């Protein structure tokens, strides 16, 4: 009983901490069990901004879908559609999914990123040469 309560409290506590500080959960523990908080960080501020844009796009996704359904319509009256246009423009700018850039996960490189692995070409090549990528082999034909 107490253990359940405890686990729930722990879960909620950690979530609270994480959402407020937007850190990666890299809290490390030494062998004695004392929590040494290593400050987790994204590779650079640009990556952090991209993360914020993704989260915001997720929040506003439904609203945007519905507003666009009203706007891109031949049935509803045009006055209503104009009002909907203005409303969707009033949404925060980071809420639109177009601003998301698929950056490399390791280096935050914005270009040369293969979508399947979310890695830039340089990191991909590095890992593949060191045999860290499952199923990837140097091409030869």
């Amino acid at each position, binding site marked *: 009983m107490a253990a359940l*309560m*405890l686990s729930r*409290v722990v879960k909620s*506590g950690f979530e609270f901490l994480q959402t407020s500080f937007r850190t990666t959960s890299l809290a490390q523990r030494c062998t004695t069990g004392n929590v040494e908080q290593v400050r987790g960080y994204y590779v650079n501020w640009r990556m952090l901004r991209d993360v914020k844009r993704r989260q915001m796009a997720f929040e506003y996704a439904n609203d945007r879908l519905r507003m666009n359904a009203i706007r891109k319509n031949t*049935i509803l009256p045009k006055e*209503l559609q104009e009002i909907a246009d203005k409303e969707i423009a009033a949404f925060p700018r980071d809420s639109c999914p177009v601003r998301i850039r698929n950056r490399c996960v390791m280096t935050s490189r914005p270009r040369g990123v293969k979508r399947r692995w979310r890695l830039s070409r340089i990191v991909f090549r590095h890992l593949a040469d060191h045999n860290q990528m499952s199923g990837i082999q140097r091409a030869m034909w």
Partner: protein
Amino acid sequence: MYRRIILLATRNRSGISRIAEHSINITDQQETKRISVSTCPNRQRMLYNKGVCTPNKRPFSTSTAISKENEESSAPKTGVTEAKVKEKEPKKSGKENLLDLLSAMKIDVTTKKKFQALKSQKSKEQPRVHPESMESATSMFQKATTEQQAQKESLSPELVAAASAVASSMPLKKSQTESELLQQLRKHESDTEVHKKGETNNIGNIIADMKVGKHPNARSPNRPANQIRFDDDGRGYTHDRGVVNEFDAVRRRKSLFTGKRLNIFPSTTDTTETEPKEVSVPSLWDIELAGHIAAVIKHLPRNGFEEMIQWTKDGKLWQYPINNEAGLEEESDVPFHEHVFLDSHLEDFPKQGPVRHFMELVINGLSKNPYLTVKQKMEHIEWFREYFQQKEEVLKESEAY
């Protein structure tokens, strides 16, 4: 033909229940499409069949039962119409075929009785191909289970009532259509149950006919257990004996809990559970203490496997074998008609006008969407309701509300 004209002409929305209306709509679509097929001669029929698009794939398949029944009825009919249309030229455009159809309709009215006699004859000759009797792999396994189980599976009374309403609105052979509909519904239910159980019954069905071969205890030694054993070389031990033999008696038990109770430990007394204490919002100190305790208790992963186990428990790693419906276990309990028939949620909207039209399109799209939960669909509709209520004035100015 004559009966089809009646159906097309008298679509009485209010009289029939919603489900019946839907199925009638489906059959009308199917029937109108098939009219174009039946009047053209043989060579053209092939092309028309390919050109006709398949009807919209609804999640419930009762329409197929009805449509197949109608298809068979139209098959003997083509003989009748072809005989009349013999003098027409083979190659025609669609429009000309339609005109032929219209002209042919008049002819058919007089031969209605003849056609019905023909049809009843043909139906007696050929055994009807029921969709249920067509054996597929899954249906064979399910038959093995359903025969064992009780015949009447639990269908909700609403579904049964709806099926009987639909059957009564069909013109011919009401009892048969009703039984076919109910069979389809039951099959659908059993399908979902099998899927829910994760198809654990299938293997049981496969090996149901196999005989269980109880292999005799191969490890029993040739000599009885209480005889002294001699080791041949004087090494002090015999080679054959393994620890296995000593646990033989234990292993012969089929389960853990057979055998006499030893009454060593007292049986658990029922402790009345104290009511959960109401804890107000835990302070940060409590959270920190809880985190500390959890960190002490938790063991660090010793290898990659344990790390992956931990990640799977956290939810960071998918569960293998991949389950497409990983987060959606509760959703499988929701019956299909709540996904598909969303008309009842449209009561707060105006009956006429562009708003209604728009919402009907929305509901049409939502009913075809298999990826959303019912709750999400309801949220969409709620949002639209609120939005249109807010924008009432604008809509009234443009006379749309």
